[in-house]
């Protein structure tokens, strides 16, 4: 799994493309990219706090949208920087169910290299698509 920030999309904001061999890893990559838009060194985050995330949606794209919004919510509500460590996605009766484990700690400006205060996930060009044998997602974060 991987992600890269895109230069020529959304001049005022931050766009990225994530790729992975399956949907859970794609969601992990997109979550890591969102965190990396907030701080330059996600690897510096210590795992002091755990959050279990349970989401459901009829649309796989909106399920990713919901997961990324969850990270933005915790960044503001508890000043928490969370790394998503594990994602499971199930489909039952036309709905997608996501269970994720996220761990992290409150922002520490001494250790965390602050970047942007991400406002929201936008739906502009937002997509989750099959790409060859794997999956890719395009996400634009409002800054």
């Amino acid at each position: 799994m991987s992600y890269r920030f895109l230069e020529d999309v959304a001049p005022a904001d931050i766009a990225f493309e994530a790729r992975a061999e399956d949907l859970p890893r794609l969601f992990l990559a997109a979550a890591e990219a969102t965190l990396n838009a907030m701080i330059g060194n996600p690897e510096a985050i210590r795992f002091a706090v755990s959050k279990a995330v349970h989401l459901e949606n009829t649309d796989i794209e909106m399920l990713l949208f919901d997961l990324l919004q969850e990270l933005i919510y915790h960044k503001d509500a508890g000043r928490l920087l969370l790394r998503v460590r594990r994602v499971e996605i199930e489909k039952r009766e036309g709905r997608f169910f996501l269970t994720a484990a996220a761990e992290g700690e409150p922002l520490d400006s001494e250790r965390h290299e602050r970047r942007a205060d991400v406002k929201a996930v936008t739906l502009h060009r937002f997509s989750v698509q099959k790409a060859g044998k794997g999956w890719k997602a395009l996400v634009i974060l409002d800054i």
Partner: protein
Amino acid sequence: MGRPAALKRISDSAWELPVTYKTGMRVPARIYATEKLAAGMDDAVWEQAANVASLPGVVKRSLCLPDGHFGYGFPIGGVAAMDIAQGGVISPGGIGFDINCGMRLVKTNLGRAEVEPSLGELVEKLFSAVPAGVGSSGFLKLSRSDFRDVAEQGARWCVERGYGWSEDLELTEDNGCTPGADASKVSERAIERGFSQIGTLGSGNHYLEIQAVREKDLFDADLAKAFGLFPGQIVVMFHCGSRGFGHQVATDYLQLFLSVMESKYGIRTPDRELACAPFDSPEGRDYFAAMTCALNMSFANRQMILHRVREVFAEVFRAAPERLGLHMVYDVSHNTAKLENHVVGGETRRLLVHRKGATRAFGPGMAGIPERYRLVGQPVIIGGSMETGSYLLVGSKEAEEAFFSAPHGSGRTMSRVKARKLWRGRDLQRDMERKGILVRTASWSGLAEEAGAAYKNIDEVVEAAERAGLCRRVARFTPLGCIKG
């Protein structure tokens, strides 16, 4: 793609796309720009302005101002007025995620020579008093219940508790409290995201600057006098919005509107980010009430920042803020939808005017302008990049064609990701210091993203707005000290 072939030049600073340009357009789309700015507009602007022209209830024309660039749904710089009696819609995409992102301009009676020796201390203390960047929280400790009061009462809540002067309310758009707010229409998530953030700047293009007025940059002596400006004067300008609270309100209602727009109201839009509902519907009215809470929270945010600015100046210059002349010039909103009366086809109609990355710019004599400015017009504050400068302008009668709207800033021309590759924050800070601008930032990469060359030329944007009759120049301000998130 470039400029659309159907684009027609209608004056030296305005262009129009006819209703035949795109299926579904109900009115033309007008873009205000000089030849040079039009040549540099990103392609998305033409398409997005045309998409906005297809929304139900839109009257006269959709607009994009000279600082326009790609946005979500509406372009940044986009304006559209909807007739609410004719099924006109309200759209979060016409307001933006940062509801009531706006500008506040504060004057002083200090001259440049008095401030420059203390500039380093001033910048340092402001950086510490006004938290900036990701993860920052304000000094005001509120309960969730208090926060709901703030959302309904705006800057008035702050002034009643000693965080400001009563004249501050007179000099704030809508007196710092837009009517119609109802905190019961706001989600708990929105409150959780915002209740500790009052008095914080945020990041991105938000800033607090100490600026100077150069004699050659006062364009109209009478207007400058009306606003209390003089050559050599130091002013303070800041730009910020409703923080996580407004962002969550926008996200919540964008999702709600997507779920009902077509199934309940039969509305289809060419872009998901144009999701909307009739203003006169349960969802439309609820969003208006919640969005107005975010407008008010933002007025309160800027009011608390002003309070901190006054405290810092008082400490550094060892004098009361009143003696230092720290009076507001004005506070304007950018990302809003407001009910206003406008003349359409010879009759006055009640319209919902969406302004996204656009400033209300009422002309002389109009209601809604502080009494002391009523004869000259509404102050319009346009923020430039941190390396160039900013402007004070005044609304004009000719802006009726644009629902009395003016630009809000320079407008970006380069992506943040590209800017980050071209500049290093620490180098930029040193370069700016050599040019006489002291900068403190919460983020080096964030600073690099805000390099002056990533923006349009503010002077060209302002010239285009003036030539189009949207507003008139009063003064240009030169940055001396800058706080960035």
